[in-house]
């Protein structure tokens, strides 16, 4: 298997403006040195604290954002700073499903216009053909074809999310960056959409980056899982290894916080102590160790925290506080 998409030491630092002249006073290190690859036909799950840079990483991968450092390779070419014009043919088979449908669906366009947009941008089919295709796509994601004439506000949150999915799969892409694709859906529709995504994958060899908070869902669809914290990858491994043999303290905290759908097993909410770190002034050394106020955190300052392989394909950030390495 060769990588379809890879990022190397990727950085996305946003300027933070302040003062009277709105000069850059600091930077928000949303993504701070991430390297990973996604193979053809593979699903890589991406999990992490909210605000740790998952959406930003996804947007850099489809080049909705131009990274401030590192590189992105897609299908054999370096797209890190590629111009819009050259990028367009690539974007055809590299799509994204957005986290907040309210942000990505134009409220003044009908669903038909929204879903057929990719066909128009890439000059595919005539009006009739597009119309037929839109109806087919809407039914594929579990909406009725008549939805095409309505506007986004006439739909519930979960229905809007499915419109975004229909648009993303319109052009039979090779790779989809899925930013929380199913979190707005009830469990039964969620299972339908996940089944659809898995079917598309086995039929067409699609690859996914699958960003989600529901760890049971991530485990089910992913081949490998990456755990992100404050702009960096903490651990990456096969899905089974992550859940059965987590090595990083943050991964362990996540797994132990999964809510159990059984009211007889109610426990006191488990939650992390400590101040949530900020990407504006990230702590030195191991960020999670700092958050936990770990007695050995100090030792991690100045250490080389590059990921280390601890088992076949199982990489983890070595630090005295969180991984005991």
């Amino acid at each position, binding site marked *: 298997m060769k990588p379809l998409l890879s990022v190397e030491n990727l950085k996305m630092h946003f300027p933070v403006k302040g003062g009277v002249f709105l000069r850059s006073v600091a930077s928000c290190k949303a993504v701070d040195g991430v390297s990973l690859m996604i193979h053809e036909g593979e699903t890589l799950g991406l999990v992490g604290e909210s605000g740790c840079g998952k959406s930003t990483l996804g947007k850099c991968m489809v080049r909705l954002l131009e990274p401030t450092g590192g590189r992105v390779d897609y299908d054999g070419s370096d797209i890190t700073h590629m111009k819009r014009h050259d990028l367009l043919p690539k974007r055809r088979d590299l799509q994204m499903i957005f986290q907040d449908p309210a942000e990505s669906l134009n409220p003044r366009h009908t669903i038909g216009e929204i879903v057929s947009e990719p066909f128009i941008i890439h000059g595919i089919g005539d009006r009739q053909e597009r119309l037929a295709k839109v109806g087919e796509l809407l039914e594929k994601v579990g909406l009725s074809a008549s939805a095409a004439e309505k506007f986004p506000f006439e739909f519930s949150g979960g229905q809007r999310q499915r419109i975004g999915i229909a648009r993303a799969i319109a052009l039979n892409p090779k790779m989809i960056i899925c930013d929380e694709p199913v979190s707005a859906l009830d469990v039964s529709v969620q299972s339908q959409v996940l089944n659809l995504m898995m079917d598309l994958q086995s039929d067409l060899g699609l690859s996914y980056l699958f960003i989600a908070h529901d760890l049971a869902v991530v485990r089910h669809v992913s081949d490998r899982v990456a755990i992100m914290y404050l702009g960096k990858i903490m651990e990456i491994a096969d899905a089974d290894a992550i859940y059965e043999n987590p090595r990083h303290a943050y991964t362990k905290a996540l797994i132990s916080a*999964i809510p*159990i759908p059984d009211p007889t097993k109610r426990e006191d909410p488990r939650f992390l102590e400590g101040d949530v770190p900020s990407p*504006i002034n990230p702590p030195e050394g191991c960020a999670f160790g700092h958050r936990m106020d770990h007695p050995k955190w100090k030792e991690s300052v100045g250490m080389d925290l590059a990921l280390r392989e601890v088992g076949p394909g199982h990489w983890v950030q070595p630090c005295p506080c969180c991984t005991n390495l």
Partner: protein
Amino acid sequence: MIRPCRFPDPTLFPYMPLLEVTDLRTGFDTDYGRVVAVDGVDFSVERNKTLGIVGESGCGKSVTALSVMQLLPRPAGNILGGSIQFKDRELVEATPDVMVDVRGDEIGMIFQEPMTALNPVQKIGRQVSEVFILHKKMDKATAREASIDILEKVGIPSPEIRIDEYPHQLSGGMRQRVMIAMALGCKPDLLIADEPTTALDVTVQAQILKLISDLQAEMGMAVILITHDLGVIAETCDEVVVMYGGRIVERAPVLELFANPQHAYTKGLLRSIPRLDRKRKTKLPTIEGNVPSLDKMPSGCRFSTRADIEHDEASITNRPAYGEISPGHWVEKCPYCYQPD
């Protein structure tokens, strides 16, 4: 303006529901006619209690919440009938003045999509402060302090910097926490939380749920929690309402609902819960088919188009009776979807 009298001392009437919704019907006027999104819904919630609402996407959960808040999109959305009794007031007939007082101060709401609720061209600080200025009559500087304080409580890092940023500069989960801060700021008597934690990782989710339950313990806040996460329902709710196609098909105390679901839809829903012990990459169990659009909804048992058992004409056209089968456990008694053994 005459302020409506406050609720009688809760210690004297401990079992009086804080909110009681009876036979609520809400509809939208659209180009293709009137659709009824909420069709005769009853529930109530007491102080200190958490009521969960679950159901298929599009079944009317958010519209129910927006009806209580009187925030339906006008002029299309309207309450067609029923009653919403909050403390000693009838909200269905409340004037806009009264609702301005009630919203944010007595009832706080966390909206499902943060971007629809936050003003994209206003700084975070201004939007959060407004709640305090409007309801707690604070001056600007005090309100700013209070805003930083509540933003910190909901786990926003560097709140003193974030307060001067615009919504698009925040991550999805941070926007959601800003909204949670606005809803909790005035310590409301009732919190309506529509998917409050979907954009948050499980550790932050646990932290927010803890914050809500702390406020509940501290001042007896009642909570209506709308969520798809049945794990969260199991861990936090006292009572659960299951909706399908604008109606309640089942309502029960949480332990009873998980142990003894009665309606075919509830059973299907519980079967579809994502689990950690399933074989990876296999087909997940679902409920076959899709919800019909509102204009094609059968007038009788709404689940009839999805259920495994074929329905007869009568059950498709006549609305099934809704009744109590054991203390606190209510079911829509369609003869095909409810088959007690």
